[in-house]
């Protein structure tokens, strides 16, 4: 949406963000009406009772008491209405959160390649949360000032024109002065935040270089550097306090003017017979609403624009075209044990003349694959080696069907890729990525994600075969241990073995494996290696290999570089060739 421009189509689109929100929109209108009603009744009560007192009229006092009852009940009703309003917001938000997440899941892989993970998370969590702020605050700040403020002004002028004008003028001046004074406060706060961030940065430096600071007396300057920034923060916040004090003083002064001075003027006027004193008190009770109106009416339009702009960020996800079926509608597509019969029984994976660029353009300067051909025979292991960025991971992603080839052909189990539904293809494959990704649930569930519906016994069996059972049982909660965010409570080797167990339980005929590069300690390394070897047994395996032991055992090695196959052959053959491969191996063993 263009800034500052609100079109009918834009509004319609904005409204489409909120499903089943009728009660919400109704509440949005009912709230200010209630507010006005409560305040009007309250003012009426003040007027009647003060006049009753001045006239010593007991009957009027009793009448006022009835109005007071109405005020009380209306106040309680207001609380209920507000609660219901929040309740509606919570429901709308729940639907919206699920909708965005569901949509994200259905986006094609290219979306995630092109957008940083943090960006999607930002949208899913924080920008969606912004919508809640729109629902709860921004919308009200557009509607309330208009409805409440407008009614309050009319009421005040109706009660008494002269006092009314006086109150309105005082309010207007007070709001103007207050706004003028407060305006720099926000910039000041931003400035302080920036200084504060710098201060934190310098603290980080001190912490990171602690050893150096201890060993080199000259490095004490780093602490001084921090202290200097800290002093800057203090200076800036003092300036801000100075300004805040101004605001405070002005607020106090205007408060005094309205509550005492106008009241005193009202007293004089009432004794002069110009107005009854009850009315003066009633008008002053409405003055808060006028102030609210005047302080907020200026920002109402901005609030509306903000709501739209913030919604746009969420639409950046919702407007992305999806791929495949609705997640809700799709069946559980875990591997169910049937191997799809291919035309050629010996074929595991065949890639021929694969040309691919992430942009999808044929004349892209950065072609990821420039005519790659490779074959993994059924039950054999093929290792891909080569420098990073050479195209190894791209090959694996293509086999997983995350992208479409520009040219060429990929056949899995004898069937060309476009012929598979995504879930059907995935059910034939167990994929073990380089960073063993665990989800924030129990170890058991993380393994079971390999094949939903697997029994607990099968989970344990898979863990045993992945050499993970022992360490899992060493946790007090065993398989129910929660792995924590990104599995951070587990060591690297443990995470990898759980990922291997997940692949085991899937029991798919094809294994795609991206070996971890990060070094593990010797014992972990050995167990991970054993787990991987067990997993490979009998499966058609394509492995992006970093470990020499894995490479040596492969039935065939493809050296991939610059999007092409540079060399292929077995370990011994390639070592004799004295080419890329030999250099890679030598570099590695140095």
């Amino acid at each position, binding site marked *: 949406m263009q800034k500052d421009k609100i079109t009918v189509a834009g509004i319609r689109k904005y409204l489409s963000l909120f499903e089943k929100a009728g009660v919400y929109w109704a509440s949005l209108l009912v709230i200010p009406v209630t507010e006005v009603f409560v305040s009007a009744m309250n003012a009426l009560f003040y007027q009647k009772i003060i006049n009753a007192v001045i006239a010593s009229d007991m009957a009027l*006092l009793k009448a006022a008491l009835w109005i007071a009852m109405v005020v009380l009940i209306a*106040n309680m009703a207001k609380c209920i209405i507000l609660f219901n309003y929040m309740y509606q917001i919570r429901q709308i938000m729940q639907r919206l959160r699920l909708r965005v997440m569901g949509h994200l*899941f259905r986006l094609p892989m290219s979306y*995630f390649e092109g957008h940083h993970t943090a960006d999607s998370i930002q949208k899913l969590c924080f920008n969606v949360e912004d919508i809640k702020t729109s629902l709860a605050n921004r919308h009200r700040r557009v509607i309330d000032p208009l409805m409440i403020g407008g009614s309050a002004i009319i009421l005040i002028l109706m009660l008494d024109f002269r006092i009314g004008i006086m109150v309105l003028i005082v309010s207007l001046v007070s709001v103007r002065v207050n706004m003028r004074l407060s305006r720099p406060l926000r910039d000041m706060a931003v400035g302080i935040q920036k200084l504060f961030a710098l201060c934190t940065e310098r603290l*980080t*430096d001190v912490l*990171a270089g602690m050893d150096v600071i201890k060993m080199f007396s000259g490095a004490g300057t780093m602490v001084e550097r921090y202290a200097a920034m*800290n002093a800057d923060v203090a200076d800036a916040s003092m300036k801000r*306090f100075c300004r805040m004090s101004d605001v405070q003083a002005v607020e106090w002064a205007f408060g005094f003017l309205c509550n005492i001075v106008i009241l005193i003027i009202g007293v004089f006027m009432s004794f002069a017979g110009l107005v009854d004193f009850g009315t003066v008190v009633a008008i002053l009770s409405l003055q808060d609403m006028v102030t609210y109106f005047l302080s907020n009416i200026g920002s109402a339009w901005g609030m509306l624009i903000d709501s739209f702009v913030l919604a746009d960020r969420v639409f950046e996800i919702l407007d992305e075209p999806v791929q495949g079926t609705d997640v809700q509608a799709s069946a559980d597509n875990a591997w169910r044990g049937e191997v799809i019969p291919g035309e050629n029984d010996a074929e595991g994976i065949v890639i021929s003349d694969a040309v691919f660029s992430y942009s999808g353009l044929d004349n892209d300067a950065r072609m990821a694959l420039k005519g790659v051909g490779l074959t993994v025979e059924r039950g054999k292991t093929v290792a891909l080696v080569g420098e990073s960025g050479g195209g190894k991971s791209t090959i694996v992603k293509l086999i997983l069907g995350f992208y479409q080839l520009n040219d060429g052909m990929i056949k899995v189990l004898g069937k060309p890729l476009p012929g598979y539904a995504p879930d059907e293809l995935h059910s034939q494959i167990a994929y073990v990525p380089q960073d063993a*990704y665990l989800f924030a649930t129990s170890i058991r569930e993380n393994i079971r994600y390999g094949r939903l519906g697997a029994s607990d016994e099968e989970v344990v069996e898979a863990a045993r075969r992945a050499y993970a059972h022992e360490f899992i049982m060493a946790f007090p909660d065993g398989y129910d241990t929660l792995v924590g965010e990104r599995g951070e409570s587990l060591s690297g080797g443990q995470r990898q073995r759980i990922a291997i167990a997940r692949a085991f339980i899937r029991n798919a005929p094809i294994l795609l494996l991206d070996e971890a590069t990060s070094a593990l300690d010797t014992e972990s390394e050995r167990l991970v290696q054993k787990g991987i070897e067990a997993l490979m047994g009998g499966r058609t395996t394509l492995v992006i290999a970093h470990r020499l032991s894995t490479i040596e055992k492969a039935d065939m090695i493809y050296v991939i570089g610059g999007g092409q196959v540079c060399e292929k052959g077995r370990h011994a053959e390639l070592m004799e060739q004295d080419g890329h491969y030999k250099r890679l191996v030598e570099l590695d063993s140095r």
Partner: protein
Amino acid sequence: MKTDKEILKHILQYVGKHRMLMLVAFLAGAMCAGCGVAGSALLKRVVDGLSAGTLGDIGKIIFMCVCILVVGAGCAWMTRYASGSVATKVLQEVKDDAVIHITKMTTECMAKSHSGDILSRLTDDVNRVSSFVQDDLILVIRNPFLLIFYLLYLLYLNPLLFLLSILPTLICLPFGAMLTTRFKAGSKAYMQYSADVISSSADMIGGIEVVKSYSLEKPLLEDYRNHVQKMTDMAIHNDMNQYKGRAFWILSGTLSSIVCLVAGGWLCIQGKLTVGGLVAFFALLPKMVETINDMANRAFNSKVALAAAERVFEILHTPIEPEGKAVSGIDDAPAIEFRDVSFAYEEGVPVLNGVSFQVPRGKTVAVIGASGGGKSTLLRLLCGFYRPQQGSIFIDGVPLDDWDLEALRARLSYVSQHSYLFPVSVGENIAMGKLSANEEEIRMAAEAANASAFISGLPQGYDTLAGERGSRLSGGQIQRISIARAILKDAPILLLDEATSALDVQAETDVQKALDSLAKGRTTLVVAHRLSTIKNADYIVAMEHGRVVEVRANVAANLF
């Protein structure tokens, strides 16, 4: 866990340094409240004076109005400004003290607490304390006095009316306060839970390849649905508390003003109260109710602030490195001696097990052995980062524990495997080796460290920023800069932990040259990985599983 009282005492210690400002804030606050009372009194005088026809000079009334207005606004300004000053200064002082304390903290403590944790204590928590000092502390102290002010005046106006109008507040207040406290605690729990949901959904997005290749969309979405459902339930439950609480607060305010006016009106009609008295009463009562409500609400804020303060002051109470008083060693003692030293980072996992050996003055000793054998730990012990659990370490004949740490560290140059450069200029990084080093010295050190050539080639030469956001320095360059720093320091003893990570051949040679020039003429203890280093050492100490298995003079070095 400390008691709230102790923590408050600790805060007051800092606040106490600015007691004059605090006093000003307090007095100004009290006067501000006094002006409020004076305003009401004036109102009463006008109303009663007019009805009785005894109102004096109008000019005098106007003059009093202006006086109260000016004094009140001035006091309001002063209250805010003075309490803000105190808060700012306390914040600054606590942070400075904490950082100085951290630099003296034992490495053990540092290692135990995440640096992220320290950061959050010194940012979020300190801010919480500061906002408590700035907004709450002054009011916590001031409110009871305000209350007494208002109370006395209202009682003076009419005791019966006072009792009646304060009753609804007294009844509603406990419920309102309880529900509000519950709501705030609930909000915290909700925030915590939604942070968890965010991180778990971050997992799902981050692991999208796994999600897609295992067709996990449906179960994970189901998971997410459950999380979101729970979030919604928590939020609604919490909203319930919030609005129930709000109902009580509104009830408290509305009822007391209704009671005040109705009962007061009745009293007026009965002739027991003047109209002016009622108006003055009614003008002041909301302020009183507000003050009471405020006090109840602050209770929760104070709790949060005290918890934050506790976390901050914990930093100030972590143990600091022990040190002795010795500032010089014994001349003819061996430079370094380990005597039966045992050490473990964690209990039950010994790293060093009765290690004994000497490094004679002016000689080079190479420590060799498999990784994880405790070699680097030897160097860290010498620097005083950790203390052995058993045995003793002598440096220049003086036990480590007796050394003044600054004097000890001045005698040592420690070049670790991971050279750290601060994100300041290259020149400044080198200058850290010596207080007030001049440019010439810096250049000479860089020259000696074989670094001057590449530094001159950097875009801004010595002024080029090093570190993460600066120009990208290679591993070898970073090492050479840190060696230049050590050369400038010119300490008699060199502790060198050779890097295991491979550099390319040229970088390797460059670094080696730099190290050779650093080691020249110094007593050197080196954890060696390179054959050339081992060859050039005078003695070789072989270590295995935390024990010294062999000490031999190096014949190849041919120096004795």
